[in-house]
């Protein structure tokens, strides 16, 4: 406890000697780091655990619908070339985001607006692509309640899509603030925090793309559901009844 007090006190003195002019929009730093940035990293660390549990759940159940012979199966409906393009789009949006931050640090407002707009556009393309993918899967019979693969897949990728959507809204807000002249190089931290969030969304998709789409699944069974043992058929029927009671 004494450590923290000592560090903050020493910093406070340092900032005071600078007149606090160049730190006007920054909260008082503690332990030599900016508090807002520290909070963002803490949030990202907690979000790691959030997505970690969702991915672990998906990995646990990824082959289960095949074992239980409850189609549609993942390897029958995934369109790898299509998802690869989506992954590429999101990856490139990380580049445009980092170029936006670089531009605002140089006080290049036009560059900031161009790159922020490009990032938001690429993010919107990704979300639109995900929406199209979801509707295609639904037409092929995979819904949130059709089998355990559908439930875990939609929850995981849906939460990721929500994160991307929030990121797009954040970027558009920054663009709006910039157009009104509210963003300068002194406020580069605002862009940096949005960038950290955006890159995090990208790294989560790197993991999802590999573990959900590319890592192969068990081969689908030759026969239909009739080939399953009696106990499994009963379990499937019970599960289907349970899922049918869900409101969505």
């Amino acid at each position, binding site marked *: 406890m*004494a*450590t923290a007090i*000592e*560090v903050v*006190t*020493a*910093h406070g003195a*340092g*900032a005071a*000697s*600078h007149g606090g002019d160049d730190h006007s929009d920054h909260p008082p*730093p503690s*332990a*030599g*780091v900016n508090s807002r*940035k*520290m909070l963002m*990293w*803490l949030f*990202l*660390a*907690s*979000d*790691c*655990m959030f*997505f*970690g*549990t969702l*991915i*672990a759940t998906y*990995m*646990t159940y*990824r*082959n*289960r619908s095949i074992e239980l012979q409850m189609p549609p199966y993942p*390897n029958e409906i995934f369109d*790898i*070339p299509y998802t*690869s393009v989506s*992954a*590429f789009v999101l*990856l490139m949006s*990380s*580049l445009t*985001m*980092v170029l936006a931050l*670089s531009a605002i640090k140089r006080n290049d407002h036009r560059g900031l607006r161009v790159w922020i707009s490009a990032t938001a556009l690429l993010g919107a393309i990704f979300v639109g692509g995900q929406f199209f993918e979801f509707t295609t899967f639904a037409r092929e019979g995979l819904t949130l309640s059709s089998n355990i693969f559908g439930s875990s897949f939609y929850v995981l990728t849906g939460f990721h899509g929500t994160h991307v959507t929030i990121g797009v809204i954040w970027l558009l807000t920054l663009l709006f603030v910039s157009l009104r002249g509210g963003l300068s190089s002194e406020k580069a931290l605002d862009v940096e925090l949005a*960038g*950290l969030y955006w*890159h*995090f969304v*990208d*790294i989560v998709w*790197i993991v999802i793309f*590999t573990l959900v789409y*590319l*890592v*192969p*699944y*068990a081969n689908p069974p030759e026969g239909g559901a009739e080939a399953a043992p009696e106990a499994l058929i009963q379990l499937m029927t019970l599960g289907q009844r349970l899922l049918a009671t869900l409101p969505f």
Partner: protein
Amino acid sequence: MVSKPVAHDQHGAEHEEAHASDQTYIRIAVILAIITIVEVIIYYVPSFRPVLVPVLIVLSVAKFATVVGYFMHLKYDSQVFRIMFIAGLVLSLGVFVAMLAMFWTVNSYQPFIGG
């Protein structure tokens, strides 16, 4: 225990982080795009099937580390951020491994079997 006060010079140094140039960012993005293309290509090559999962995981980790290190500036930023993020990552990996291990042990379930 009393730590050394943080000097203002050090604080200033952290504001002047040595970030990469735009050219470096573009080069990194090209490398990431190439890794993604390699991932998709090896997915379709049947002879890669026996080693597909470990190769995909290695490539994925390389992409992850590159984005975090360069685009998120963790390579250049304060060690405090690095420790925080790695702590979250290790905890989530722990949950991931524990959950898979539990299902593997109890149900003889193997999530990576396939192909």
